[in-house]
Structure formats: C-alpha cells, structure tokens
C-alpha cells in the first residue's frame, strides 16, 4: 500500500522565500506538472536520506528556479547542458547524487548531444525529463516532442512531418544505448499514474545511492497555459494524445551493478617523478665557441627527420647550449614531406623559425628543390645521394653528398639514414660532440632494441665523413 503523505518533505525549503520579481506571482502556473514532479523527487530524497549528498541541476526552462524549492546542493546550468555539467560533478564528487532535471527543449533540442553522450558513458546521474510537448518558459514554441498537428507559436498551422519532422521519443533513443541501467516513461495525468511515476523516480534515485549508473525517467507532464487548456483538460489530453505517441512503459531496469572505472590518485612524490626522464643526463660545461646553427632537416614522412632534429636539440642542451626545435605538422606532413627546424646557439634564441638555414640536410629530392635556394651563402648542404640524383646548383655553399639510405640499408635498417647524416653533420660542423649523441641515442630512442643499429649508423656517418668528405666537397 502506498501511503499518501501530505507533510512537506524535509528536502523542500520550509518557506519558499519569494524572490523579488515573483513576489506577486507563483513561479509555476496553476495545474503545471513541474510542481508534482518536484514533490515526488523531494519526498524520495527524504526517504533515501540523501539530502546532503544531492546536487540538483536546474536547467534553462520553466524549472530554471527549481533551486528555490530544493534544500540541497544546487547548480543552475546553461540551456541543455545539465548532463555535461552533471558529468563534471559526478566525476569529481564520488559521493554525490546528481539529479538532472530538464525540459524537452532543453534535453531533446539544444542539449541532445549532452544527454546522449552522458547516457552512453553511463554517467552516475538520475535524469528527470519533463516532456510537456512544448517550450514553456519562452511562451509556447515547438519542442522536439511537439505532436504532429499540434499548434504552437512556431507551428501556427500545426506541426507537420515534412516541414518539422516527427516528435522524438527520447526513451526509445536512449534505449538504443547499452550503458543506461534504468529507462522508464511515466505520466502525471492522474493519481494512479503519479503513484506509478513515483516508483520509477525512486528507482532512478536509488540507483544513484547504489552507484549503478545512468537512470532516465521521462515524465509526460501538463503545461495547461501553453496548451491553452484548463488543468483538467490538459490531463485528459495527456491520456488521449500524448500517451499514444509516447507509450508509458518501462524500457529497461538492470539489476546487476555494472563494473565501474576506478582510479587511484598518485601522490605528490609520484607526480613529480612522472615527467622525469628515465636516465638523467649530465650537462657538460660549455667549452667551445660556436656560431649559431640554423638547421633545416627535410625529407618524406618516415625518414625520421623530426626525430633527427630532436636528437640534435637534445645534444645541444646536454652540451650546455640553447636550442629550439620547430616541426612542420598537420596536413603539411600528409603531402609526403616533413621538415624540422633546429636552432643551436650559445645565446638566448629569439625566433625559432628557420627562414635561411646555414645547414640543410636534404633527405629526398623535393626537400632539396624546396629549400636549396633558402640556404644562406656560405652555408652547407648534406644531400642524401641515395635518393637525390641531381647535384646542388648553388655555388656559394658547401655540399656533401652522402649515400645515407644505402648505408642504412646495408646496416639492415633503412630508417637509420637520419642518424648517418647526423654523424656527418656533427663531425663536419664540430658544433656538437658525437660522444654526446652516443649518450643521447639510448635515452631518446623509443624502440630500445634498435639502439645498437642506430649507434652503428652514427659510426658509419662519422667514418664516411673522414673517408670521403674531402673528395666530395
């Protein structure tokens, strides 16, 4: 037997202090369903003893001021976004009972993406969806749930399928997702229906106490004012018109508790260690004077031009120099060519952009074509002669032709061509010590089993410079 209670629930404020502008008017219209839905929620909050834990989300709509009434934690949300706001809260406060209370414009119109995704993630919240087939607060425009033929301010001739689409069944939509644990449509058209509604409300909220997950209750609710009916007529209209389109039924009620994602917060100590690189590098004191290096390394994606740049920058830092690295990125890379700009200097580096490199490492033909003219006079170019058949046209630059890809292939790993050219660059320029790169490679390389072959490639680069450099310059 259900006892009918007439006392005011504890979780309602004892007195609703009329806010200034509403001094003379009641917030909800006579015969409105919002009041009934509020009362059910407040009673159940009492029954479950969860008043302190509830965070009630007021939407934009007639129930924007729901927080006038509920003596619980209250957050007023932007139009349609309560499920997103609730996600933020539920993911912060493990102990919270999040109630998202929304109208049909709010939830099924502007907020459609928020509700669907919150449902799909199975967020811990109880959603009460007040379907009154109209926009109440703004004076009676079409809602996504407005019935075909129903006249509203924006469907003065009645809603038509062709122009306005059909009414959306939110329960049916949400029922197509796997995560929600409870989905039911209820009606507030008469006392018997309200008693049934109460059970659904209670289940949705009890699921939150149990942390079972996303629970959704759609409430067919009267808006006599905008339907232009008396409260009594509006209740009949729900039964005769709304319920046939929006069947009142339970769609889902899952008993077992779904597995939940648990997280364990790291301590400060662990957090500080999170970003430490595996092996600490020793920074050598600066010993030599160097001239600024404006390096451009270019090739096609997969040739490791980006990582070659990073290795150089790392070596520079280890040797107590300053360095910046700037990649080409995004669709730029999809065209097949990639390039990295590296600056190495004793001084603080201003612009990280390399417009006129004094070192160009061209790993493929398009790179040489693109950047040859930009090299500053007196600079030098390393050409991967395995893939570039032509000679450099410029006469005011030094050139080294290195069959880097062939050397790398002979070593058994074609992608180490980048390391071969770094070896050549380092001995040629004398800006950085090859010993530094030998230390950096094992630390920086992600695939540890390739350390050996990369070190061999470096040695090959060093050797080839010593053997052939003179002849080719």
């Amino acid at each position, binding site marked *: 037997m259900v006892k009918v209670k007439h006392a005011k629930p504890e979780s309602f404020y004892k007195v609703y202090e009329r*806010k*200034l*502008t509403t001094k003379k008017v009641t917030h909800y219209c006579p015969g409105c369903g919002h009041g009934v839905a509020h009362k059910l929620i407040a009673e159940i909050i009492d029954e479950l003893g969860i*008043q*302190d*834990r*509830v*965070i009630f989300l*007021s939407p934009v709509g007639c129930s*924007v001021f729901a*927080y006038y009434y509920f*003596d619980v*934690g*209250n*957050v*007023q*949300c*932007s139009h349609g*976004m309560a499920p*997103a*706001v*609730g*996600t*933020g*809260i*539920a*993911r*912060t*406060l493990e*102990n*919270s*009972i999040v109630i998202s209370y929304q109208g049909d414009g709010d939830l099924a119109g502007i907020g459609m*993406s*928020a509700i669907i*995704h919150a449902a799909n993630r199975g967020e811990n919240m109880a959603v009460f969806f007040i379907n009154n087939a109209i926009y109440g607060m703004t004076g009676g425009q079409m809602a996504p749930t407005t019935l075909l033929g129903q006249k509203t301010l924006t469907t003065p001739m009645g809603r038509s399928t062709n122009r306005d689409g059909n009414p959306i069944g939110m329960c049916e939509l949400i029922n197509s997702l796997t995560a929600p644990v409870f989905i039911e449509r209820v009606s507030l058209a008469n006392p018997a229906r309200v008693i049934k509604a109460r059970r659904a409300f209670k289940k949705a909220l009890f699921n939150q106490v149990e942390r079972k997950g996303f629970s959704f209750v759609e409430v067919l609710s009267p808006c006599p004012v905008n339907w232009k009916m008396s409260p009594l007529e509006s209740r009949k209209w729900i039964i005769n018109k709304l319920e046939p389109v929006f069947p009142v039924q339970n769609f889902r009620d899952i008993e077992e508790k779904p597995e939940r994602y648990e997280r364990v917060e*790291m301590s*400060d100590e662990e*957090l*500080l260690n999170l*970003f430490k*690189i595996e092996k600490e*590098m020793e*920074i050598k004191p600066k010993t030599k004077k160097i001239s600024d290096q404006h390096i451009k390394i270019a090739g096609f994606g997969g040739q490791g031009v980006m990582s070659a740049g990073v290795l150089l*920058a*790392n070596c520079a*830092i280890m040797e107590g120099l*300053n*360095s*910046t*690295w*700037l*990649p080409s990125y*995004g669709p730029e890379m999809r065209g097949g060519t990639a390039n990295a700009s590296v600056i190495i200097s004793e001084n*603080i580096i*201003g*612009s*990280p*952009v390399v*417009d*006129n490199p004094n070192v160009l490492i061209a790993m493929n033909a398009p790179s040489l074509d693109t950047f040859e003219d930009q090299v500053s006079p007196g600079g030098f170019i390393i050409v991967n002669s395995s893939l570039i058949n032509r000679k450099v046209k410029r006469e005011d630059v030094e050139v080294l032709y290195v069959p880097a890809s062939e050397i790398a292939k002979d070593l058994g790993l074609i992608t180490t061509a980048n390391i071969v050219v770094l070896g050549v660059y380092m001995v040629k320029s004398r800006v950085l010590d090859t010993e530094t790169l030998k230390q950096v490679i094992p630390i920086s390389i992600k695939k540890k089993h390739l350390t050996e072959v990369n070190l061999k490639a470096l040695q090959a680069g060093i050797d080839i410079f010593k053997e052939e450099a003179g002849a080719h310059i």
Partner: protein
Amino acid sequence: MKKQLFKGNDAVVCGALLGGATHFFGYPITPASEIAHAAALYFTRAGRVFLQSESEVNAINMIYGAASAGARVMTASSGPGISLMAEGLSYLAGAELPCVVVDVQRAGPGLGNIWPEQGDYNMVVKGGGHGNYKNIVFAPNSVQEMCDFTYRAFEIADKYRMTVFILSDAYIGQMMEPVELPEKVSKTERKPWALYADRESRHNLITSIFMNTKLMGEHNWKLQEKYKEAEKILEFEELETEDAEVLFVAFGICSRICQTALYELRSSGIRAGLLRPKTLFPFPKQKLNELGERVSKIIVVELSNGQMADDVELSVRSRIPVLRYNWMGGEVPSTGEIVKRVKNDI
C-alpha cells in the same frame, strides 16, 4: 639533469598536473591536440580525470560542473573550439567559477587553417561571450612559459574565481625547447562557495541568473571590482627599452621574432626595444603610456589584423605614431622582413 626538451603542448600538461589540475575535458583540434593526447596519458596515469567530450560546448560545461564541485579543471582548444565555448565561458564568469583554458591559436576566420595566428586576441582578451566579463589572459612566448603559466594559472583562477586563459599559438605549441619543471605540487583547498555533496556545502548555490535588475546590476558591479583587483597580476617583459627610440610591442611568437630583429637593428645603429605583455588582461597600459613619452615610434607586430594594436593605441592615447605590422592566414614574418621594414619606416 634539470632541463628536459619538451614540446610546448606537452609542457602545458606537465604544468597543469604539477599545478594541481585534477580534471581535463576536451575535444581534439589541431594545433592543440597534443595537449589532449598528453593529458589522456598523464592525467590518467596520475589517477586524475581525463575525458574526451563530445564537443567543445560540452567540454566547457563539464568544466562548469567540475569547477562547481571545487576541482581544478581545464581544457585546451583552438579558435573554432573557443568560439563554441563562448556561452559556457560567460556562464563561468557569471557564476564566478575558476578554470583554465588553453587556446593554441590557428588562422581564421571559419575553418581557416592550422598555422599560427593571433586573431583570437579580441575574443579571448575581451571575454568572448555575452555580458560584462573578463578573463585573465597569459601569453607565453616559450615552452618554459607554457609550463609555468599553466602551473600558476590554477592558483590565480582559484583566487579570483575567474577563467584564466593561456593564449598561445601554433608555433609556441608545436615547438620544443628545454624546460625546467616546477618542483612542488600545488594544491587547492576546500572552497567555501563550492559544492562537495555534504551538509556543510549544501546551502551553496552556483548560478548566474538574477531576475531582479538591481541584483543583476550589483552582481555586475561586483565583478568589475574583482577585475580591477585582478589587474594586480599584470606582468610584462622589457628588452632594451631604456634608450629605445623604436619600441616593438608584441606577444607570443611575434615577440620572439622581434627579439631577434631588435638586436639586428641595434647592430646597425637603430635603437630598438621591446615591450612584451606576458598578461594581455591585465594589459600594461600604464607602462605603455610611460614608454610612449620616451620613444618616437611604436611598432605593434601581430599575426592578426591589429587587434592588440587597438589597445596599444588606446594606452598611449594616440599621442605618438603606432605602426601596425600585421600578418594573417598563417603567414609568419622572417626576422629579415621586419628589420627591412623598420629601416624603411624610420
């Protein structure tokens, strides 16, 4: 070793976690996506919360929720995403909720492209959404500052209950430089106004609606007072301004280019200086006004149609010539281009 090589976007995540961030909600967009990638990895590893939202609109509202619940929360995006967040940012301001938003600027308008621009200046510095509100805006020009500003942003956001923006650009976000990480983890305390799902906080209300015009007016005035108070955090950098005849004003990537240009100009006898705002709100109005008395020309170098230049002109009350060197669409000037133009213009 103290310094490590970091990408600007990755450094944001280091700064955030060490700065006490517990929640990241975001939606991918080039050139900011690495922030989401790094957050997905490190926030999760650290037992903090990373969630890929279904849109930027939803992300900013998740932030609204987490901030209501007292969390240190952030997102990162670029122009189109920040545009979508406008309403949410306004709500955050109205409800006085703290958060951190990183904007790695790309070129606009519309879909634009993914190369660097600074055309979000007005949107971010002036507020972006509806109503009389402001954001605190940091403008990093190095990877170190990407980390440091993000680290500090959370405490400042908490203090003023405001959104703190890190207004970066595609180059600062994508580049790598050595970084020294903060050595202490910053923490938030229980906020007396926030909701904690307990008895003590039950009476708190997070809202931005005041139907009564008088109350709404008072709320607005209270916010303005707070923004005035926030002007205390003003930060800028001066380079060779003491004897400067030509003053560059630039932030972000442009300030780096001006820095190089400045010394090139000096080596050919032109006394150039640089004023670099590190905060864009608050803006170094007073400083500019002072410098305006001493220098003969101001050159504002921006990757936009001159959005900051308007503020510079206001600050010097148009007493001296303010030249605008503008690039848009992802075009970034070379140092040489700027040097040549300055020589031509003076």
